[in-house]
């Protein structure tokens, strides 16, 4: 079977979710990946959506974070204030899955405005949503985003959600309790913060992708790990499950 770069990205994201995890899921690629994990190797994965559904077990891909299938199949449905205050804020959710319009070398995320002028932005994006507190409070954060020099920038125009700030110690100084982004999974490979200085480093490429391609798709001089690995290609089972979920040959 052949696969698309987006399919590889989704499969790679799904694989990092273990069965005993609780995952705070945003709509789009994160939701597809989390639902794929639940249908393949992690049937006990607890999906938590900011709409207030805890332990949803959708039998199809939800089309919004407030899809009826989430409420119908959840272990519990709580109000939105309760979700943020009782479940997210105290660190009960192990993994937060986030997307990004821009991400920088310390994995800080922008989903607010493109351009330097907040009041007169070049592009007005949707804004923060649940992301700042997901990034602050989940045990760890996984970012899923397509890689390009436009998206992977040296410094984000606006810090919507804090990754590793300006480097080591910044999260602790700010009083953020989760570990922050531990993986950035793209359509080209995987970046991880350097254990010492927290700068995102390419540690893995997907099959058929070279490190040079990833470097070229990054808006700063991307570090490449000394020992690079290559992602295991999607299995037939993974691709079949993914396509059954998305109802197509390609995820979008």
């Amino acid at each position, binding site marked *: 079977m052949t696969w698309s770069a987006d399919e590889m990205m989704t499969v790679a994201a799904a694989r990092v979710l273990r069965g005993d995890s609780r995952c705070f899921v945003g*709509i*789009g690629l994160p939701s597809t990946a989390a639902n794929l994990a639940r249908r393949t190797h992690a049937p006990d994965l607890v999906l938590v959506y*900011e*709409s*207030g*559904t805890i332990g949803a077990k959708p039998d199809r891909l939800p*089309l*919004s*974070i*407030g*899809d*009826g299938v*989430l*409420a*119908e199949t959840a272990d519990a*449905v*709580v*109000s*939105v*204030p309760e979700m*943020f*205050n009782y479940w*997210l*804020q105290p660190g009960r959710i192990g993994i937060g899955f986030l997307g990004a319009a821009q991400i920088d070398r310390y994995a800080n995320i922008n989903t*607010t405005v493109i351009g330097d002028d*907040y009041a*007169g*932005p070049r*592009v*007005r*994006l*949707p*804004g*923060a*949503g*649940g*992301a*700042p*507190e997901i990034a*602050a*409070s989940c045990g760890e954060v996984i970012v899923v985003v397509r890689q390009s020099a436009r998206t992977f920038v040296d410094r984000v125009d*606006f*810090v*919507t*959600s*804090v990754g590793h*700030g300006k480097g080591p110690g*910044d*999260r602790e100084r*700010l*009083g*953020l*309790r989760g570990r922050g982004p531990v993986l950035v999974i793209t359509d080209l490979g995987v970046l991880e913060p350097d254990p010492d200085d927290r700068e995102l480093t390419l540690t893995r490429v997907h099959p058929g992708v070279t490190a040079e391609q990833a470097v070229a798709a990054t808006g700063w001089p991307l570090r490449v790990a000394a020992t690079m690995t290559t992602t295991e290609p999607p299995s037939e089972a993974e691709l079949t499950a993914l396509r059954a979920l998305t109802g197509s040959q390609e995820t979008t």
Partner: protein
Amino acid sequence: MTARIVPLAEAVAELVHDGDTVALEGFTHLIPVAAGQEIIRQGLRGLTLVRMTPDIVYDQLIGAGCAARLVFSWAGNPGVGSLHRFRDAVQNSWPAPLEIEEHSHAGMANRYVAGASGLPFAVLRGYLGTDLSEHTATIAPIRCPFTGETLTAVPALNPDVGIVHAQRADRHGNVQYWGITGVHKEVVLASARSLVTVEELVDELTPVPGAVVLPGWALTRVSVVPGGAHPSYAMGYSDRDNDYYQAWDAISRDRQSFQEWLAGVKA
């Protein structure tokens, strides 16, 4: 003291005035879209619109020129993309400049909680290290008097009018809703005046698992508007019209097609 059950046009005329702060809430589910379009039809102006997730109904209100300010945490067409009328207002001041006050979901939810609780502010772990605190005046540090730790305070939201959609009401104006309950209770209780549009009026609110009941005396007006959440949905009554969310992208993308849509609403 009991909420009066009146037609939608009458409820909007009674409750909403030019310059008011108005919150239409509903987290994906039970969004009071018909009430928003009635606000457009009545030509209200200068509103401060409050909503965690401005989506189609706020794109419509903004494009129609009802809004002077927007207080929000995520403005988009969920699962589709941008809100074109919102972007046109922010980027090009069309049809009018739109002042914005921007928060996170956690902050907005807690602002409603404070409003419903009769408190002037709420405390959360939020915004720390983000650029939001630089651009939004309604975010302030606060110190725990016991531990000395610094947290974040946000002021209560107490809209002049809070509007939500619900599944049903009884003849006393008691309202019942279930499924994803969002911030319905908070916005109704935080607002000086409130309006709930419902799918139907029933003789008795038979208990439903997961249902919330708001007593009629805690509301101002109830209007029966079947399908009043379309293209959002009312669990047990309708499904989300995902195609309409897609279609809105084309309708709203340019000013002319939007104005044609607007003429239809006002007709």
